[in-house]
């Protein structure tokens, strides 16, 4: 099971080699998320409208290894943008990936940009 977790590591914006054109901005609900597929990876994409920003992270919740984070609820804890897993309400920072209400491993965060109405996610491979 750990092997699937190891497929996801955060990508530093400076090391992006591929900007993957993931979807139309309208495919992602405002203040909510959806999932895109890139090669064999599942990436959760969120349109955090209240902060006028977008986030991308692994769809895999490291708690029970289910592909569900894109269905989670957005919010903030002391100003830090976070997502709550729909399974057991584990919350993760969308900025650092850190588990905010427990000691689970951090989730991987991916660079994201919007151009001409499309969502692009940055990968380094």
């Amino acid at each position, binding site marked *: 099971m750990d092997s699937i977790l190891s497929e996801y590591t955060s990508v530093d914006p400076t090391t992006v080699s591929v900007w993957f054109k993931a979807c139309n901005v309208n495919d992602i609900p405002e203040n909510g998320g959806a*999932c*895109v597929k890139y090669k064999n990876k599942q990436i959760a994409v969120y349109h955090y409208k209240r902060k006028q920003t977008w986030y991308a992270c692994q769809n895999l919740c490291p708690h029970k290894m289910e592909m569900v984070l894109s269905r989670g609820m*957005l919010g903030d804890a002391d100003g830090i943008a976070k997502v709550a897993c729909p399974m057991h309400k584990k919350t993760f920072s969308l900025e650092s990936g850190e588990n905010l209400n427990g000691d689970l491993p951090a989730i991987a965060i991916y660079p994201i940009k919007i151009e001409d109405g499309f969502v692009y996610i940055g990968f380094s491979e």
Partner: protein
Amino acid sequence: MKTVIVVGNGMVGYKFCEKFRAHPANAAFKLIVFGEEPRPAYDRVHLSEYFGNQDAKALELAPASWYSDNNIDLITNERVTDILNETQEVRTISGKSFSYDYLVLATGSAPFVPPIKGVEKEGVFVYRTIEDLEEMLSYAAQIKAIKPDGRAAILGGGLLGLEAGKAVLDMGLEPHVVEFAPKLMPRQLDTRSSNVLQLKLESMGIQIHLGKATNQILGESVIEGMDFGEDDQLDVDMLIISAGIRPRDELGKTCGLDMGTRGGIVVNNKMETSIPNIYAIGEVALYNQMIYGLVAPGYDMANVAANQILGNPEVLMPADIDMSTKLKLMRVDVASFGTPYMPAEKGLSIIYENKTKHLYKRINVSHDGKTLLGGILVGDANDYNILHQMYLNNMSLPENAEELIVGARGDGGSAFGSAMDLPDTAQICSCESISKGKICGSIKEGACNSLKDVIGLTKATTGCGGCKPMVVDLVNETLKSMGKEVKDVICEHFEYTRQELYGIVKVKNIQTFDEALDKCGKGDGCEVCKPALASIFATIYNDTANKEAVIQDSNDRFLANIQRNGSYSVVPRIPGGEITPEKLIVIGEVAKEYNLYTKITGGQRIDLFGAELNDLPAIWKKLIDAGFESGHAYGKSLRTVKSCVGSTWCRYGMDESVSFAIELEDRYKGLRSPHKLKGGVSGCIRECAEARGKDFGVIAVDGGWNLYVCGNGGATPKHAILLAEQIDNETVIKYLDRFLMYYIRTAAPLMRTAAWLDKLEGGIEQLKRIVVDDSLNLAEELEIEMQSLVDKYECEWKQAVECEEMKKRFSHFVNTEERDDNMVFVPMRDQKMPEPWTN
């Protein structure tokens, strides 16, 4: 650097290490600890739990790494055999020597085995260590293999003996407790409370034999029974001896320490023995000519010895040791404090006894009626904390002292006043030695602002947790006295209770979550306030969960319950549990087509599991075309109204329970509430619909329906309480409208009706006044609100499958038609199930 050697790694020896290393001056000392058992110190008080889970680690007070982290050399499996006090050395069984500057004897005690003929026979055990338990377990398993109805006796009806009784019950043998005295727990209980406890234990399957002196153990080489003389015998296959303790004082004898005539190492109030630099603590120490077999005085002794060695000579053992105890024996509360029983010339007692409920309460008061001298509680020890504090602090009694145990007449109030009446010195958390003054002071001096702060700063409640209710009261009362309001605000984004927020949303006509944040909140919201506001919007405007899907709890957003592997379950509404064969066939066909696991639910409907997100709209389309609607199994909303078959078919039925259940379920379907709602309708008092286990229950009686409210199953089951009797259908609906609407308006998020009623000031009587007598003049408003919600009902699944935009929500990926390949099912009993979690 000086060396402290601790002999004994039991609970008290461990506490010594903990207190020692927590002291600021401890760094100048090396600490070596010897334990003769193979593992580090464990919680002997809860030893019987080992029978339930056989998890020795769970009993550990601290893992082995704790000792190394704290710079303590822990040497287990090594018994100290000699003390050479001339040279200040100890020698161990393997011949090693260690020098000490200070020696602390915490060797504890061993079970006392009375000199009964035949006590050496196979099948006779003592109850003290995890190893003892392991031997007992394997022996019990052998017995059970050849004799499934085997019996085990426990010799000794004291505290530990009754614990052992539970252990025998857990092992699957029939327990028999044999006590020499004419009552149970002779030190703590009087005869009447012993009788009450005996009744309770016997009702749980533990046989009690009092006043029995065991003459001999019967059997060849293996125990077969016990002989009490005069042809009185008991056949047993196993015997556990728990007849008291004897101090493990052999080290003291050999090195010439002063000893008590019946054993124990004599200590003074500094825990010093008769030889300099040697201390004794715990059950080996004889203090005030007494061996204290309780853990609390042992812990005090550990603290005194640590402080004496570390140079705080003013820390001394008090002259009077409080022997008060409170424990749960097999879920039965037993407590005694002060002098539990006494002759009339010393004090007078007030006794409340109720054998039908296995309750006994006794308090002893002084002749002038002013002070509490002690007491006993069996069956319900909720008042122990405060009674114990009144006793310890010599507080004056209320005029009618009986109210301390039977409650004040009238409004169900308590006679205690509040925890605030205690003196500042009252020790609230005895595990961490935190006084009332310290708790209240931490708030008054501004260091703390909430319960969380107080717990963080003082560590109160972090031990056994028994003091939590008092700490909560103290914190709330102190905050209140300083003019700070204490309330259950929703979360960091909304500084309001749900009820207040409901009022604001309604008055300001707030329509969306962002509008609510802008008008009365801050930040961006979270997983707590979003569903709470969604529920409030639903109550005020009766929009379905489709309106603002992203603020709904995940299950509401996808209109289905997420299951273990990220698949969903589908539950169509089957009102009252009534369904036609045609509809049953449709459910079967849909389940076959989409390969869904099917199961009958507790609410008399059918759950279809294992649906992929992408298939949900198609599945629901088929169900809706066949006449089904959403069952709202995913929502904090009305689930089902369960029914029995009623007078339509049943020869006992008094009324048509199915028809009425369907009517109620149709009326309240789609109603969003602070938590899920369940109802039931039974056609007679046999109550086959289990209506009293529901948030609302209706039972047919002669002359109409009885209406019960605020029951639930779940983790804390509660029977619903009678709200009105012998009323007709229209009145049931009228009262239910008022009751449900009032609950929905005023409850906190995720608070079910039972918990809500507990919090409602005035309880069921107040609820009757509001719902039946309309004391708040609200009835009409509540009925109108409910009627408007009923009128606006729409099936949210029908909305979703008829709208292309909404259907977009139900696809796992937005950039491909592919399905989630991480979702795995495995076969089970001709159906499928999710692959089990491995972590």
